[in-house]
């Protein structure tokens, strides 16, 4: 990929392999962590926050992996999967499930939706190879805005979810109190002083990550990587490219559905209507920050990326506010995350195009 590798020192090579923006972001997070105790922020609380946010978002970022592997690019259509998750969540509550069972039921109900939506979405993406990312973005947008209407029209009845006054149409945010709030986080929760670790959620993430890792090492998984890195070669080797791509899209969509449910159990609310609209972008930038590119991503990228991204999101407001007394965190978050996506898009990648 890079022709002028000869005359660079070891540091230069390291920077190149790790990526300069990634290095800057990692250094920035490190700086924030060092500064935090100095400016009077409680470090254990901060770390608790980072871990908690990692556990909420991990699976949403993981949902990028299959599609990147099969060469479908970054899954900007994540909202489609999120919608399947939301359908699972609301239907599970509607059917009267409570407590942790409602979480299991939400996943079970979301699954058929994710499979159907994923199949349709994958079929579409097979029709338009080469332009996946832009169309994925707009498939996400269209589906979110379509569902905005649906949330109003669908005959939901549960008094905990519909508007109190008119008795119909779902609320914009639905509290999960009494349903599956902390359903995973409660399991084996570790508490040391101010430090709190939601072991259950982390284990659940680890389980799925392991499953994806194992899958990528099966025969089908290897075929998926082959399709992603060189579709012509893969076709010559007798792999049904379209089928593999479809499978990867369905997997991504299902992971997104589960991901949003895990996010909700930590966050404590179901957010409907326009909330899923921009949810793809943080996940996309997280995996890119973790070292993935448009056609290459590993589980390690997911873990590193989510920690770095969520670390910056949680740390900047507290630390920056204490230093300069103005809330530039939003600006830093936007520039860092969008800048990362831009950087990744401008890299020349083999296999694509």
């Amino acid at each position, binding site marked *: 990929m890079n022709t002028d590798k000869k005359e660079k020192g070891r540091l230069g090579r390291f920077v190149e392999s790790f990526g300069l923006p990634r290095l800057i972001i990692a250094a920035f997070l490190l700086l924030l962590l060092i500064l935090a105790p100095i400016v009077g922020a409680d470090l254990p609380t901060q770390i608790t926050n980072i871990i908690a946010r990692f556990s909420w978002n991990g699976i949403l970022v993981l949902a990028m992996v299959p599609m990147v592997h099969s060469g479908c690019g970054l899954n900007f259509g994540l909202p489609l999967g999120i919608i399947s998750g939301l359908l699972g969540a609301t239907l599970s509550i509607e059917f009267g499930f409570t407590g942790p069972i409602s979480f299991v039921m939400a996943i079970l109900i979301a699954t058929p939706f994710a499979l159907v939506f994923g199949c349709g979405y994958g079929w*579409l993406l097979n*029709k338009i190879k080469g332009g996946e990312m*832009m*169309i994925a973005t*707009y498939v996400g947008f269209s589906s979110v805005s379509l569902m905005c209407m649906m949330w109003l029209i669908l005959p939901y009845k549960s008094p905990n979810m519909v508007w109190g006054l008119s008795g119909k149409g779902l609320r914009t945010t639905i509290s999960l109190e009494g349903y599956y709030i902390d359903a995973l986080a409660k399991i084996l929760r570790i508490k040391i002083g101010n430090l709190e670790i939601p072991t259950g959620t982390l284990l659940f993430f680890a389980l799925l990550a392991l499953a994806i890792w194992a899958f990528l090492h099966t025969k089908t998984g290897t075929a998926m990587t082959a399709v992603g890195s060189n579709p012509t070669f893969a076709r010559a080797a007798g792999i049904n490219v379209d089928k593999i791509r479809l499978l990867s899209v369905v997997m991504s969509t299902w992971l997104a559905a589960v991901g949003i449910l895990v996010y909700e159990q930590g966050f404590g609310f179901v957010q409907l209507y326009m909330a899923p609209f921009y949810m793809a972008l943080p996940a996309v930038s997280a995996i890119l920050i973790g070292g993935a590119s448009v056609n290459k991503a590993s589980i390690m990228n997911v873990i590193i990326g989510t920690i770095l991204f969520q670390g910056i999101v949680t740390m900047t407001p507290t630390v920056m506010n204490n230093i300069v007394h103005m809330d530039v965190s939003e600006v830093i978050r*936007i520039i860092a995350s969008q*800048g990362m996506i831009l950087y990744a898009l401008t890299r020349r990648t083999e296999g694509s195009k």
Partner: protein
Amino acid sequence: MNKSGKTKFNLGSFLRRSSVPIMFIIICAFCIPLSGLSPSYLINEIVTRMGRNAFLILSLLIPIMAGMGLNFGMTLGAMAGEIGLILASDWQIIGIPGMILAMILSIPISILLGLFCGKILNMAKGREMITSYIMAFFINGVYLFVVLYMMGSVIPIKHNNIKLPRGYGIRNTVSLLSMRQKLDNLIPLTINGVKIPVATFIVIAVLCLFIMWFRRTKLGQDMRAVGQDMEVARDAGINVERTRIISIIMSTILAGIGMIIYLQNMGNIATYSSHSQIGMFCIAALLVGGASVDKASIGNVFLGVILFHLMFIVAPKAGAAITGDSMIGEYFRVFVSYAVITIALIMYETSKRKQKKMGGEALRQAQLEEEKK
């Protein structure tokens, strides 16, 4: 790209190409009676909205000509226009001179942003649209930084009525009362109760003429050549990268001026949100007018404005009439805007693939014939 299209008028392909406008005509025809709005009100609204939006939408044409697709980065120009207007209104230059000053201020910012955007897009050939789309978000972060933190602290802002109470940063809305509809009302004309913003239309007409003239210039021809095939253009001695950057810069400048015209009609700036949706609405309107990702004409712009905004006006009322809930209509029009862009993008990609396939088959045919001889 499309050699066979010109030879024969083909009803099927015509229907396919204009399926989006036809769909919209049907939606509008269905919604107008349901909305219960009077024709004169509708005509009035459409004329106003055409004056407001046409310039912005026209700014999209040049990058399409250069084969760079829909320029989601037009938001960059919109932001430059807003910065120009904020400064002009702080210096209390009112009326038309204020607008002209805002335009002059916006142009250097637009050039800088356009140059940056063009350079990045050259690095991401083949993915221009998604890159320009992310670019809009990225520059929005920079814009936030400038407007929310730099203005008032580094960039002097004198008047407290546009500053946040904390002493720096711009308020959520900046009133443009002194410029409100100054251009629209410069030459007052009312026909049958329909108010026509003559001066705005003149400006738009001048831009249309400029675009028509520009197409025939050397640079315009170069852009079209680049749009057709980058490699062939490069072999013909055209500096492809430079041409592409120029097309983006021009689009950004025009978008900046367009935004100023848009905002003088609205009468205030929503500092942090005016520009965020503008790209999406303009692109949707252009596509509704029958444009595609690689082909758009001035006619598409005007047809698009009429159809898209007609739908926009009548959808909430019609939605309320059908379901008894006005929110459904609101969501419906948002959905339709996104769906139109989605469909247009899908049609573009599928036809591109089909053409590629046809090209391959034609080559094979030619080779077979060669062998026969």
